């Protein structure tokens, strides 16, 4: 990972590839690379779908090595959905393969004239960009099937579906999993639309002839990785809960807490939640010959995913995540896992973010387009997105635009991005993160990343009733740092509870790079990334007034706890004071 490739898609005479040394981005990965580069190089007032925007694709610091859980790929740009800086990441094989080929980043720049559609082939021999108009308007599953006939099964693919080509604001970028299914998505913020604006349909990553990236100190790296894996395996969340049930294990608990947003955030309890639960999902998957335990990339030891089959045992989709089951399920008043799975497949196939699409359909239900609970209606709306009809284009641009078009008063978005599956009224702390993150409403922007061990912001009394802003700040700093390593966020639980596992992670990084990174260094990296993102947003015109939840969260109490969001604006405004 000692070089960066820039592909000027708008160059005279056709796309032009240049390479440069990794330079100031040496030793960085993931979100650190994408956000620092976008903040430095993209004009903050650029149109997100214009030539001035850039799409930065970066593997993690340890991607391509033998280290476990190192397969996250970050994609960054100015977001068409939020207008802010954006980092969106995904699992799958792409990060590992791209890193082994040797690139710290691939940067798509400019914008071609005309309607030609391109594919980019990245291999040890270099990068080629080819016109391939036979791929036009193919959705992700048939697209990958077609590409496999030419490039085979020993590569990784990144692609956009029809939604990305149409530059819909909720469009995602798909990364193939080990079975070469386009199931892993950089979903949030419309990054697929930016790739579509560059007229890039697919990136084929071929690491033929390349070896695993070697650590500076192989023995220490091997030892640290072993301890890291042991830590993950012995922890009840990463070693038992996630492998058995996946992230959807949260459905029952959120519903029990009264924090499960139901029918467009009208109540915190869904009567059909048990039918959607991770426990029910795992049972169904196993009974139908699928699997409740599956890794999204090689080298994953948590295996939080699965395979969802239909009643006849035929593959439908990968195991839908908790947020997907919620957005297409309880948020829409739907309690049928088969319907959710079908919608998840459609999301992946068309290439749209499952959270934004599900929330959008719920907003459309609130607008009266179809009733809450109308499963067939939800599928019909998704089909509109796939067909690219005028209605489908509106829906595919997310909840905010759909809400405006259909005059919905209560639209659950922050900075244009849909709220995920946790109501911020009973769980005020997550509302602080939704409101203040640089990314728009995002549950992963402030993850439970061992702030206790890192001592980000000093010691915090865990049972103090107030102080959510302080906690959220610390979580956002720590998350920005972990996102920069390219490690899967789900390592959080093991490093939260087991200091020795966190130390093993630091030891892996240090053994690999020959550095002496400490917890303090991790914190500083997180602050550096967040500061750059915040600065970009400020230059793009965002102020403290954008760091607010939609008004109805302050005025409409939600059952069963009958709470409103009550963190004062003045406290929210303190989040970036460090």
């Amino acid at each position, binding site marked *: 990972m000692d070089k960066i490739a820039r592909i000027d898609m708008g160059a005279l005479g056709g796309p032009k590839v240049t390479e440069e040394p990794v330079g100031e981005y040496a030793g960085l990965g993931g979100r650190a690379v994408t956000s620092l580069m976008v903040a430095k190089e993209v004009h903050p007032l650029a149109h997100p779908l214009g030539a001035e925007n850039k799409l930065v694709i970066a593997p993690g610091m340890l991607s391509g090595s033998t280290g476990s859980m190192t397969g996250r790929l970050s994609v960054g740009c100015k977001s068409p959905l939020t207008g802010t800086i954006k980092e969106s990441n995904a699992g799958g094989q792409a990060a590992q393969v791209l890193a082994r080929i040797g690139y710290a980043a691939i940067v798509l720049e400019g914008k071609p004239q005309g309607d030609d559609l391109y594919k980019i082939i990245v291999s040890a021999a270099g990068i080629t960009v080819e016109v391939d108009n036979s791929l036009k308007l193919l959705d992700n599953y048939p697209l990958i099937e077609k590409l496999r006939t030419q490039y085979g099964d020993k590569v990784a693919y990144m692609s956009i579906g029809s939604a990305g080509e149409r530059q819909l604001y909720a469009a995602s970028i798909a990364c193939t999993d080990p079975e070469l299914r386009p199931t892993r998505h950089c979903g949030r913020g419309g990054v697929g639309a930016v790739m579509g604006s560059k007229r890039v349909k697919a990136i084929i990553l071929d690491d033929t002839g390349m070896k695993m990236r070697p650590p500076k100190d192989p023995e220490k790296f091997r030892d640290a990785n072993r301890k890291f894996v042991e830590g993950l395996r012995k922890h009840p969340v990463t070693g038992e809960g996630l492998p058995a049930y996946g992230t959807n294990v*949260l459905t029952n608990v959120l519903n029990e807490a009264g924090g499960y947003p139901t029918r467009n955030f009208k109540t915190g309890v869904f009567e059909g939640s048990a039918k959607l639960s991770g426990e029910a999902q795992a049972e169904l998957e196993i009974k139908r010959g699928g699997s409740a335990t599956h890794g999204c990339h090689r080298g994953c030891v948590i295996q939080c995913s699965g395979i969802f089959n239909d009643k006849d045992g035929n593959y439908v989709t990968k195991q839908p995540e908790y947020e997907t089951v919620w957005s297409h399920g309880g948020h829409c008043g739907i309690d049928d896992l088969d319907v959710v799975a079908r919608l998840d497949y459609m999301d992946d196939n068309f290439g749209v973010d499952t959270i934004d699409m599900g929330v959008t359909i719920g907003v459309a239900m609130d607008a009266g387009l179809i009733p809450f609970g109308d499963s067939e209606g939800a599928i019909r709306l998704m089909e509109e997105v796939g067909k690219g009809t005028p209605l489908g284009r509106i829906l595919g641009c997310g909840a905010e635009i759909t809400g405006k078009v259909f005059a919905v008063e209560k639209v659950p978005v922050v900075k244009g991005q849909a709220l995920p599956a946790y109501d911020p009224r009973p*769980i005020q702390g997550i509302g602080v993160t939704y409101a203040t993150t640089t990314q728009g409403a995002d549950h992963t922007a402030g993850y439970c990343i061992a702030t206790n061990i890192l001592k980000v912001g000093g010691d915090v009394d865990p049972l103090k009733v107030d102080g959510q802003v302080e906690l959220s700040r610390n979580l956002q700093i720590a998350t920005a740092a972990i996102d920069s390593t390219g490690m899967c966020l789900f390592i959080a639980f093991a490093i939260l509870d087991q200091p020795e596992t966190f130390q093993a992670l630091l030891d892996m990084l240090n053994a690999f790079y020959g550095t002496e990174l400490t917890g303090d260094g991790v914190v500083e990296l997180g602050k550096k990334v967040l500061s750059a993102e915040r600065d970009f947003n400020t230059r793009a015109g965002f102020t403290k007034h954008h760091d607010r939840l939609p008004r109805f969260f302050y005025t409409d109490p939600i059952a069963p706890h009958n709470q409103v969001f009550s963190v004062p604006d003045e406290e929210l405004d303190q989040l970036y004071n460090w």
Partner: protein
Amino acid sequence: MGDRMTTDRYAKLDITMNIHCINEFSPLLQEGVELSVQTGGTLADLLGDQLALDREYISSRITTVFIDSRPVDDMKTARINNGATIALSGAMPGLVGATMRSGGFYAALRGGISYVADTDTNTDRQGRVRIKLFNLLLSEVGPVLLQHGVFIPAVRLRDFFRSRTDNFWSGCIEVSLNGTAVERSRLTEDDYLTPYDDVCLSVTFREQP
């Protein structure tokens, strides 16, 4: 919890099941079953003394707890009233999962809904509580509850039996209603269980040859 909590119109249903069929009862357990217990004590005592769960197991595995939808931080001080709904879970992923954890580092993030001990608790009375089990606890605590005996509305239990597949019925070894052996097929009949308001279901698991 309504009148159902105090009714005496219940049947006693005993089932012996193949131990490999524990997960078949998950739909009942995750939606909740009622238990007749001594109320007024702490949740720790309910689980440790009345249900005889190992104290070390309770502290290490039951890490997310709700009483009446409120996350509980200390099972040793949380008191159980007649009619309470208790939900028990293993450790949860995600920030919100960590936030809900009993006494967890991020408990402040949901401070507004946290359980606060009731000072007016009546002690030492027989009552009923509803217990829900989630995730890893379904197979670990489920058999304990089912062996203890759980109260389920007859119509709900009949519908549960009707939803079971061959895997359940092939693992169903013996059935008796009010002490009399019965054919297991009768459990799904329209008017077999439903004349009762509730059924007290006890399940014993054993290895089937």
